[in-house]
């Protein structure tokens, strides 16, 4: 996501770095916009990072 600068055009702020926030950030980047992903805890991932496997296929969630 590159180094932040003081001002960027076409930027969006995403509040919360869980699965929804991360997916939105990836999509916004792919659509050609600059993203600030703002997360209150020290790492992104949200609750999904705490899950071991996912329903119903039991795929690893990390």
């Amino acid at each position: 996501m590159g180094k932040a600068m003081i001002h960027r055009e076409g930027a969006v702020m995403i509040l919360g770095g869980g699965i929804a926030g991360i997916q939105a950030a990836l999509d916004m980047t792919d659509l050609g916009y600059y993203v600030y992903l703002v997360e209150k805890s020290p790492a992104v991932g949200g609750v999904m990072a705490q899950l071991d496997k996912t329903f119903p296929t039991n795929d690893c969630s990390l």
Partner: protein
Amino acid sequence: MITNADFLALEGEAGDYTAKLNIRPRYIDADACTACGLCTQYCPKHHSDSYNEGLSITRPIHIDYAQAVPATYYIDPSSCMFLQHDTCQICVPVCQSHAINFSQKPEARDLKIGAVILSPGFGKIAESTLEKFSYGKHPDVVTAYEYERMTTASGPFLGEIKCFSDGRHPKSMAFIQCVGSRDLGCDNGYCSSVCCMYAIKEALVTKEHDPEVDITIYYMDIRTQGKDFDAARERAENIGIKFVRAKVADVTPWDNHLKLTYSTLDGQHKFDAHDMVVLSVGLESPKDAQKIADITKIDLNKYDFCKTGTFTPLETSKKGIVVAGAFQGPKDIPESATQASGAAALAAVTLKKQRGKGTVLKEYPEELSVTDEDEVRIGVFVCHCGINISSVVDCPDVANEAGGMENVAYYTENLYSCSQDAQEQIKQTIIDKKLNRVVIAACSPRTHEPLFQETLKDAGLNRNLFEMVNIRDQCSWVHANEPEEATQKSKDLVRMAVHKAAHIQPLPEQTVPVTPKALVLGAGVAGMTAALSLADQGFPSIIVEKGDKVGGQMLNLKNTLNGESIAAHLKSLTTKVEKANNIEVMLNSELVETAGFVGNFSSVIATGKTKKKKETTYDHGVVVVATGGHEYRPKMYELGKSKKVCTQQELETKLEGRAKNRAPNSIVMIQCAGSRGDDLGYCSKVCCNHAMKNVLKIKEINPDSQVIVLYRDIRTYGFAEDAYLEARKKGVIFIPYEVDRKPVVSSKGTKVQVDFFDSIMQEDVSMTPDLVALSVGLVPNSTDELSKLLKLPVTANKFFLEAHVKLRPIEMAVEGVYVCGLAHGPKPIDETIVQAQAAAAKAAMPLVNGKVKVDPIVSTVDQEDCIGCGICTSLCPYGAITMVKIEKKRKAFTIAASCKACGICAAHCPTFAISMGGFTNEQLISQIEAFGNKKEKVEA
């Protein structure tokens, strides 16, 4: 990415916002930290590990988990001795890279942004709600989050499930559903929509750990309404997990067990003892929901989730601020991911004018040339995957064996090869040891190959100089009980990969230009919403509709459950589509032919009602499939035979009319008519809500009407639960029936009779209502032809199959094709709109870039050896091989961008003229020979 940050204020308006942040110090310099973990080992203070739900102890200076991003440790000021008491500082000299910096101060930061996406997730149910289940009083009562960490191999107990009270392995377990959901006691009237799924998942995982353990799930309704979710429930029942329909009143300690008191449907009170109780806690609105609402001035609903409308499911009450994920309402991972993409599409429209102005492109070092002449230098990395692999496979042994193999210049092990520090280390090793082939023995290439290939690119290697060996799925998982054999198999697989790797060659990366237009199939709510979103982002499209008018399934519906007019929305949608100068609607039309590949499709559309059709050719870059679905009419319960039997859809139309007796005095509704095991194997997700909508309307028109709803599970998930409660308050009677004891409907003359077993009164009931309404399911409009035309896979139920159920819910297996609406699976209007917006975001991606990358693994024809027989052309399922004339001879030629690398052509070529990039005969033969080499050794 800005972590450790508080959101303080938001000023300005859509397109020109300023957000004020406070970034809390980590006390560790992120650029210097190597995530070695030495500091945590030396830190003397204990700290409850919130990542493990407080089940284990860590230190104030720590990292939550090895794969955390950013991979930088941090110091939690709440328990750090220096930050609290000005003592200690042991960690400072310990850190070899001098990364610890206690002088860091909070930093205020202003962000200039055009739009905001809110995705703060969800909060946790208050502990006071859990107290009646003895949570906090007895150690063997745990929440599902805690239990999730307990069952995890990388969790605090390495996946061993033990009772906290005395360390024994539980032999009998209970899951209690709806804890903190559907519970007016804690003001959470809504259904959390995910707990049934995770409880079934955790129960299945428990059975994997110990097949002998006895598991009971206490539930009110099992709500596995998602696509193919019912199948998992059946799987759970088949392996002996018990489902008991009962409301648990309390849990009390009893000897060294836990006693559950519960009441069953027939009014009986029962008791049962279990060793361990897992509380399926619901999803609460996020803790700081009110604060976010105050800062951004958005409205919340009565449960403090973000308020949205059925037709604007991702829009907040403030322009330029959109919402995604559980803050919009409790939901699971795929729906969160879908909403995220949909929100991205909405934000992209707000920012359209600034597209591409602020982005930075990642730069890679120049690719090193690797030719046949170069010495082969292979690096082998064996991943422990925590203990996921290493608890079964002897990883050091595998690595050592690899070290002795021919051409191997370097070998090592990693705890987690996918962690950021391991990536950095692999990259550095490639450069330092001058490796020109990399073999990684870890998990599945399906999930992790792209990550490792990225590392190769960062190190200046072509990404195809890479081989991945799956020693997790294929060794440690399937041979969990045979560690020696699993280790031997791992060695075999690694040896085979090393031999193959010696022959792999770099493959060129190719890109092709894109036609920036879309083809949308279907003019229902999904198709029109997707086309409009694309148009708003600046991309023209053609909507091809089979019927003679737009609207699709929406034409058959009147109002939403919340009372919004569907007809009004359809009208506004249609007007917008008509006014948009870059959308063309073709009615009475069908797609008859498509050729090409992502970015460069060319389709033929036939228009006309008669046999003589007008054909139009249209070039486009992407396809959005929104072909919709319709009500299924089962041949049961006298539907079509008696005038008094109708479907919910027909009833809705009738209720909207003016007929005097449209809401008669006695009505019986039958849920799941023809669904969940009869004609349709699945749950259609919308019928329970549809029934609620009609029931409430009936009660509005005729409050004295006696309405009985016969159901299997009422699935009014999310906020629709409120309607279910209201229906019961208004006197509607809900009676569950078992699948082996379905109601029987018979008709004689104008009379219709319903016989059923009343599971509440425990007796057979026979009645002659004025009307029987059937909740029938939804089926997709024919997907057969389209799936053949576009080579799209469909599920057993004939819905289109997405590329990955969890992670790529919108994309199809064929690149450049996206699916939304009923064609993907049964779903209500709001979810359809979200999906359509998400499809528009995904579809816009290749169009924005103006070019697409072609996977380098494609077939190539050796023109020397080709005899022009044409077998390959006739067999290629993707039309990717054409015959060309070269020097007057017929030769086969591969269109690289269409090739999906299936290998059929290479396998059938009689002269071995075709080879697959990355899978040449030479490579495969050496791989197979390598397998045989072991046998010689063993025999010798």
